[in-house]
Each structure stands twice: as structure tokens, then as C-alpha cells.
């Protein structure tokens, strides 16, 4: 892509650990984790709208929150305009927040009923003012501190140059510490895997036999004999436990061997380091450089003169709020009203004004239209598009409303269970979807057209749980085109040849590309429905 992205995430993950009960701790059952966002790579260009669609529980709201830094990501990189957001300290993060604003999901719950509109909408202004004041006061201090640290670091580096043995020793120590940490992490992970396998096997033994997997679209075979719960025999359990213990022992053995290997390498290194020396000439040169640095140091830092902005007065806040309200289509006398005096659309507008008042670069719109009727929804969507044209905001539109995404977005990302399954231009994804889930989603959207009545929907099942999801494609359990490979390995997002910029995470993308979404709805009556009970 030509321009640099405004927001860029790489392999972003957000996990929420579940609480462990006392029984879990005693039986050694590993901690269970909700994988809300699981390796999402997405970017938003300046002035662009990216629509994020998916069902509830797909992690789209969590992703929005992580991008706004309201949640800290568990893993992965998050960059804003080329700057690493994870490295910002508190002051700079607060100052950064004016760049990204969120319009929250519930316009009723996100407006304080005891505050007037000017207080609600003016709150980000006050926060911004405070952040700017802190920044202006602390930035010179921070620059001076950074300079002092840089001087100290450089001095130490030059000093070490004169002592190669010490330098090598320090490198070895760092390397050794890292190797040990990696060793420990790896074996802990393996241990968790073993525990999990063991407990899942035990659970499977206790659970009743599952009903034979129903073909897609025919959930529940009426008249089938009820599943027989097998008896858990002591022998079964003993066999599993023995296997588990064997695994643990083998692991401990490998672990000890690995540890010995790491220690040996460290000892050898230290022995080698003791022998390192400099030639007299080199030594003289380096010591001279060190002494020269002690005398001269680094060039003094440029400390910018940042004027501390004055505290924002109430009258000023009211003025700014009254100025922004017409922009979202509210009369300016609303500044003294309370949220309950507005209708749903009005509240959504107040919420929007609150996000726009600090003039952000990116607005995260979390379900902006879910609580609204079609007519009001059309007004809000129109306003969003106009504002983008006037002020050049970038939007991340999080919604399950495909119609809204169609109208507002330039690009669309489809999320399913914490992962992005398809990204592409709005025309590409909505007109020629490739991933089976996208097809299902589009086919499921009811169309206000009586000539296109459907009779049956072929995607069965519910959205599975996000707790410790299985390997492989997350949609495999509901997909009508599933093959064995889908259950075993996760299909990475890849570009489809012939469609630049359209990424799909499906092993069978090429094969299913031409299947129309409408074919997931069949017009024939399907298998006979079970007879109505008498």
C-alpha cells in the first residue's frame, strides 16, 4: 500500500483468564482462557472507513477497545501513525488519546444521566486540556532525563570497549538468562498441554456419548435412540493416569538434559571470555576515546519551549460544545438538556459529538445504529459520511448490521471467534464473498423484499465457545464445505490470486469462491420435518 496506515495491528491478541476454582487448583486443571481476540492483523488508512462485521461474541468490540487502548493487548503489536503504542508512558498515552475516540455501544448507558449535555460532551475537552498541560510541563523534564540516560549508556559502552573480557562476560550472562527463561516457558507450556490433554480425556470419558454429528441443516434426528452413557471403568482411568505420568516423566528427563546443555554452554563461554585481551595499540586508542567522551559528552538536547495552555474555563467549554452540536445535527440549545430528554437518535448524536469534539483522527463506532429505527439510522449514517468528507476522519465501524457497513465502509473485515476470516473492499466482500462464513452471514440477513422469501437456511448450530478453542478453522463446526484439513490446521489469511487486496482465511478458498451466498438458502423444503406431537 502506498500511504502509511493510521492504525496497524500485527498479531494482536487479547485473552481474558477465567477464574480458577479451588477444585481446579487441587486437581491441577490448567487455567482456562477466553480468546476474545486471537491474532488479528488489520490496518486503517487515514480518512478510510473499515467495517468490522461479525456476530456477538466474535471479539469485534474487544478489538475496538484494544485499538483505543482501553484494554491492554495480551500479545501483538499496535502502531498508530508509525508510533508503537505499547511504548507510550502514561502522560503521553493520555495526550495520545485525543487521536482515537470511541462512540460506545449503548447510547443510554454511556451517557451519565446526572450530567448535562455540555458536561458530557465537554468532558473529553477537559481531559485533553489536562493532558496537554501535563505534557507541556513534563516534556522538558523527560527530554533532560532521556539525555542523561543516553550519556550514561554511551559512557558505559566506551568503557566496556576497553575491557573485552568483561564485555563478553556481560553478553554471556544476558544470553544465559534469556535461554533459561525460554527453557522455563517452553516446559511450562508443554506441561499445560499435557495437563489439558489428560483432563479433556477424563472429561470425555465421563461425558455421555455425543449424538452422531448431524449433517448441516438437519440438526437433531428425531426418533434416534437416546445416547447411552458408557460406564467409566477404573481401568480406563488408570490407563489415562499412567499415560499422563509417563508423559510427565519423559518431559522431566528432557527438561533436565536441556538445562544441562544450557549451563554447559555458559561455562564454556565464560572460559573463552577470560582469554580475551586487546593489543596495546587498540587499548591506547579506546582509552583515549573514553577519556575524550568523559571530557566532551554528548551534544546538549534541544528542549522545546512548550507553552502551558491555560485551564479550560466553563464558558469556553460550553462555547465549544455549542459549536459542535450543529455538526451532528442537534440544535445548540441542547447544551443545557439532560440525556433523558433525548430520543434514541438524539442520544446517539450526543455520543457522536462527544467523540468528535477533540477532533480525533480515528473514530471507533461501536454499533452506532443497533438501537435505532431505520429512518433515524439513515439520518445518522448520512451524517457520518458527510462528516468524513468534511473533516477527513477515519472510522472503524463495528457492527453486525451489514446494511450499515455497506453504506459507510470502504473496506470490510469479517470476524469470527476472535479471528479475521476475510478482508477486502466493501464491493468485493459484500458482492463476491469467498469465505463460507461471510457467505452465510450475508445469506442470513433478511431482505426487505417479498419476492425473495427464503424457506430454509442451511447453516446450523450456534456460535461455539471462545474458551480454549480447538485448533483448525474456527468455522469448521458449522461450515458446509468442511474437509478434514480444516479441523486440523488453521488457515492463515492469504491473498486470493486475481483479487488484489482481498484476503481470506480458508483452505478451500479457490474451490468455494464461486458459490453464491444465496445457495446457502435452499428453496426446496428440505428433509421432512418431524411430525408434530399429537
Amino acid at each position, binding site marked *: 500500500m502506498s500511504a502509511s496506515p493510521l492504525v496497524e495491528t500485527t498479531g494482536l491478541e487479547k485473552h481474558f483468564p477465567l477464574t480458577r476454582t479451588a477444585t481446579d487448583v487441587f486437581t491441577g486443571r490448567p487455567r482456562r482462557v477466553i480468546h476474545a481476540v486471537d491474532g488479528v492483523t488489520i490496518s486503517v488508512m487515514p480518512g478510510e*472507513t473499515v467495517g468490522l462485521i461479525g*456476530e*456477538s461474541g466474535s471479539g469485534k468490540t474487544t478489538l475496538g477497545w484494544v485499538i483505543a487502548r482501553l484494554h491492554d493487548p495480551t500479545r501483538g503489536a499496535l502502531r498508530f501513525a508509525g508510533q508503537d503504542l505499547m511504548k507510550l508512558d502514561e502522560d503521553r498515552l493520555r495526550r495520545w488519546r485525543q487521536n482515537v475516540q470511541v462512540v460506545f455501544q449503548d447510547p443510554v448507558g454511556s451517557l451519565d444521566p446526572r450530567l448535562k449535555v455540555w458536561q458530557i460532551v465537554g468532558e473529553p475537552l477537559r481531559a485533553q486540556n489536562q493532558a496537554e498541560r501535563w505534557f507541556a510541563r513534563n516534556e522538558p523534564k523527560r527530554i533532560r532525563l532521556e539525555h542523561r540516560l543516553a550519556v550514561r549508556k554511551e559512557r558505559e559502552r566506551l568503557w566496556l570497549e576497553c575491557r573485552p573480557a568483561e564485555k563478553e562476560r556481560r553478553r554471556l550472562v544476558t544470553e544465559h538468562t534469556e535461554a533459561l527463561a525460554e527453557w522455563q516457558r517452553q516446559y511450562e507450556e508443554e506441561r499445560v498441554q499435557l495437563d489439558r490433554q489428560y483432563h479433556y480425556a477424563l472429561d470425555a470419558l465421563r461425558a*455421555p456419548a*455425543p*449424538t452422531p454429528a*448431524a449433517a448441516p441443516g438437519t*440438526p*437433531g434426528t*428425531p426418533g434416534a435412540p*437416546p*445416547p447411552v452413557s458408557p460406564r467409566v471403568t477404573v481401568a480406563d482411568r488408570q490407563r489415562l493416569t499412567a499415560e499422563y505420568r509417563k508423559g510427565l516423566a519423559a518431559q522431566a528427563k528432557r527438561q533436565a538434559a536441556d538445562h544441562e546443555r544450557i549451563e554447559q554452554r555458559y561455562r564454556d563461554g565464560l572460559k573463552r571470555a577470560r582469554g580475551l585481551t586487546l593489543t596495546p595499540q587498540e587499548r591506547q586508542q579506546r582509552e583515549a576515546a573514553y577519556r575524550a567522551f568523559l571530557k566532551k559528552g554528548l551534544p546538549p538536547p534541544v528542549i522545546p519551549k512548550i507553552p502551558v495552555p491555560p485551564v479550560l474555563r466553563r464558558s469556553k467549554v460550553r462555547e465549544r460544545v455549542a459549536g459542535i452540536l450543529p455538526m451532528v445535527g442537534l440544535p445548540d440549545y441542547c447544551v443545557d438538556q439532560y440525556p433523558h430528554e433525548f*430520543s*434514541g437518535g438524539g442520544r446517539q448524536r450526543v455520543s457522536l459529538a462527544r467523540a468528535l469534539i477533540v477532533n480525533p483522527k480515528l473514530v471507533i463506532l461501536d454499533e452506532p445504529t443497533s438501537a435505532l*429505527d*431505520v*429512518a*433515524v*439510522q*439513515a*439520518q445518522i*449514517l*448520512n451524517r457520518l*459520511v*458527510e462528516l468524513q468528507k468534511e473533516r477527513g476522519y477515519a472510522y472503524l465501524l463495528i457492527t*453486525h448490521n*451489514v*446494511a*450499515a457497513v*455497506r*453504506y*459507510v*465502509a*470502504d473496506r470490510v473485515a469479517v470476524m469470527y471467534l476472535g479471528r479475521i476470516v476475510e478482508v477486502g473492499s*466493501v*464491493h468485493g466482500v459484500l458482492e463476491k464473498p469467498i469465505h463460507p462464513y461471510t457467505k*452465510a*452471514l450475508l*445469506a*442470513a*440477513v*433478511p*431482505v*426487505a*423484499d*417479498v419476492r*425473495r*422469501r*427464503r*424457506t*430454509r*437456511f442451511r*447453516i*446450523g448450530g*450456534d*456460535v461455539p465457545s471462545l474458551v480454549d478453542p480447538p485448533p483448525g478453522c474456527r468455522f469448521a463446526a458449522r461450515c458446509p464445505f468442511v474437509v478434514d484439513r480444516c479441523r486440523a490446521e488453521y488457515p492463515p489469511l492469504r491473498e486470493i490470486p486475481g483479487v488484489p487486496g482481498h484476503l481470506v482465511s480458508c483452505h478451500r478458498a479457490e474451490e468455494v469462491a464461486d458459490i453464491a451466498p444465496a445457495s446457502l438458502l435452499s428453496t426446496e423444503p428440505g428433509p421432512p*420435518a*418431524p411430525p*408434530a*406431537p399429537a
Partner: protein
Amino acid sequence: MPDAVVSIQHLSIDYLVAAGRFRAVSDVSLDVPRGHVVGIVGETGCGKSTLGQAIPRLLPEPPAIIGGGKIMFQGVDLVKVPLWKMPLIRGTGINMIFQEPLNSLNPAFRVYDQVAEAVHIRRIRESGRPVASRAQPGPYNYGRRPEPTPSDVWSGKFTPGGAAASYAHRREVERRSRETGEELRREVLDYLRLVRINDPETILNLYPHELSGGMRQRIMIAMALSEKPSLLIADEPTSALDVTIQAQVLTLMKELIEEVNTSILFISHDLGVIAETADELGVMYAGRMVEFGPIAEVFESPRHPYTKFLLRAAPTRYKTDGPLLSIPGNVPNLSRPPPGCRFHPRCPIARPKCRVDPSPTLMPIAGAGPEHTSACHYAEEVPTLS
């Protein structure tokens, strides 16, 4: 209409609030023909849910007051039936599926108990035993029960939840219903299979919070269908569900309508959902029915400006195709509705006649089907409206 399950005539419903009295539903007439699905659409606050809840008299009265009109159901005017007799009509006569499946299932009872209660009620009523309005010897009480005294509660004669009046009573009930229990269980399982629930034996023993939204809604549907009601009122049954689950539930409902011959009043603000299910469509605006007719006719050639605007506001285009069409102005305040036609302040074809009372009522339209009616003085001009 000769064969209407429920026939609403000139129904008006008021709400008493601190600011005064406002008319949420005014002068609505509606027939639900047997075996048909009648859809009601309208914006938030247009009175469609009030109408739906008024039919089985589920509205809290007061603040709601039925200001006038009739609700004729099986030859009885429900407006005149005393509230304490209504439970005998609810269930097998008129049943309801609510919007929030979590809030409308009892969190303290297992799925089995809730579905079994519905089946049991239907069986008692089908058996023709006279149903008293007082406490019944049976697993479930659904009539009026004497209030427990504090000493009843203290001595354990009263158990909250309404399952039985006392433990002794409960034992008696269990003894009597042991032989019918197995039969009941089989029927409950049948209904759960009917709504396509996998592994119903397991689901029976779960509590509602352990199920997903789609499952809960299917349980609600199973409960509603197991009573085989003459009229089923579905108040936004799929609004809380995801689109793929919504599609499953709608598909299921359509299949079941054919199997269990019932009439449905389907209330929704989603035109897409209505287009999929309904046979007839009524459009409500500010407490009034502004258009009614066979769904194909209403969708293809709406004869009220509001319907026309509502259909056009649904976003079906891309940003590059130009802005979405929305309705100018706002929904009127119902405590001070505009005189004459309620839609005239926002209507492009409004004339002086529209501003004088009384409001136009549903009238047949020249040049449209015989069953298509519209509450617009100038209904013939609407098709030419751009």
C-alpha cells in the same frame, strides 16, 4: 371478517404518566385471519408493542388504561374480561413470545419444568376438566392462589416459585402424577426435537442461563407451540439474536406455522424480518394504523407516504451511490399529537384537508386490491411520489 381468530375494533389505549395522559394506541382496528401471519411494523414508540401486550391483557393497568374499543376473541370481548380470569385464556388461547429470551424464562427453573408446565396446562384444558380459578391440585398452579400468610411461609407450607402450595401437597401431587410424568416427559422431548434442539435429554436438565440466545428463544417457541394457541403474538422475537441464529429461528417458525395450525401476530421494526414471514402487513405510526394490506401489495406499491418513506430508508446502497433517504422531521410527541393526520408535518403531499380533525381512518383505495387499505386522503397519489 368471518374467520378471524382475533378481531380488534377501534381499540384505544392510554398511558397515565406524570405529564398527563397520552394515547399510545388510538382507534386501531385489526383482524387476524385464521392460519395467517399478520405483521406489524413501525418505529419505536408507535404503539406496536402496546397493542401486542394489550391483546392478552398483559399491560400493567394502570398506568395503561384501555380507553375504548373491543378485542373479540372466540366470541368474548377481552376488554371486559376481569383480569384475574385472563390466565385461563392466556397460554392455550393467546400465547406470546417476548423479545428478550433471557428475561422471559424463569432463571430458577430447569428447561424441563418450564416446558412441562406449558404442556401440562394444555392437557388439563384439553381434558375438559372444569378449570377453577383457585389453586388446582396439579403439579402447577396457574390460577389465582390465596396469598400466603407469614405463618404459612414460616412453617414451610408455602414455597416461593408457585410449584406447589406446601411440601405435603407436593408429595400428594407427585404420587398422583407419577404415571403421567413419563408421558409428560416424552411429550416435552418431542417438542424440543420439533424446534430442532440437539440432544434434548441433556438440555432438559439445564437452566436457561446455560443456553445460548438462540437456544433460549427456541425453548420459548417450544413452550408457546406446546400449548397450541389459537393466536401467537411474537413481539420482536429475533431482535436479540445474531443474524445467522435469526435466520434459523425464522426458518423454524415458518415451518412450524404450517405444522401447528396457528395464527401469528408478528411485531417487528425490521422490514426484512417482516418481509420473510408475514402474509398481511399493518404499518403503525404514532399510535395509529396507517396502512394495512397483503404484504406483497404493501411492499410493491405502498399507499401511504409514511410506508413509502419507511421502505426507502432501509440502507441498501453504497456510499458512492449517494446519500440514504431518510424521513424529514421527527416522530410527534404523543401527549400533544398534531391535529388531523399524524403524519402531515412530515408529509410532502400534505394539504389543508390533512390538518383538520378527525384523523383519516383506514379506507379502501381506488385502483388497489380489495383488501388493501390506507389512512391517507390522497392514497392514489402516493405511487407517483418520488
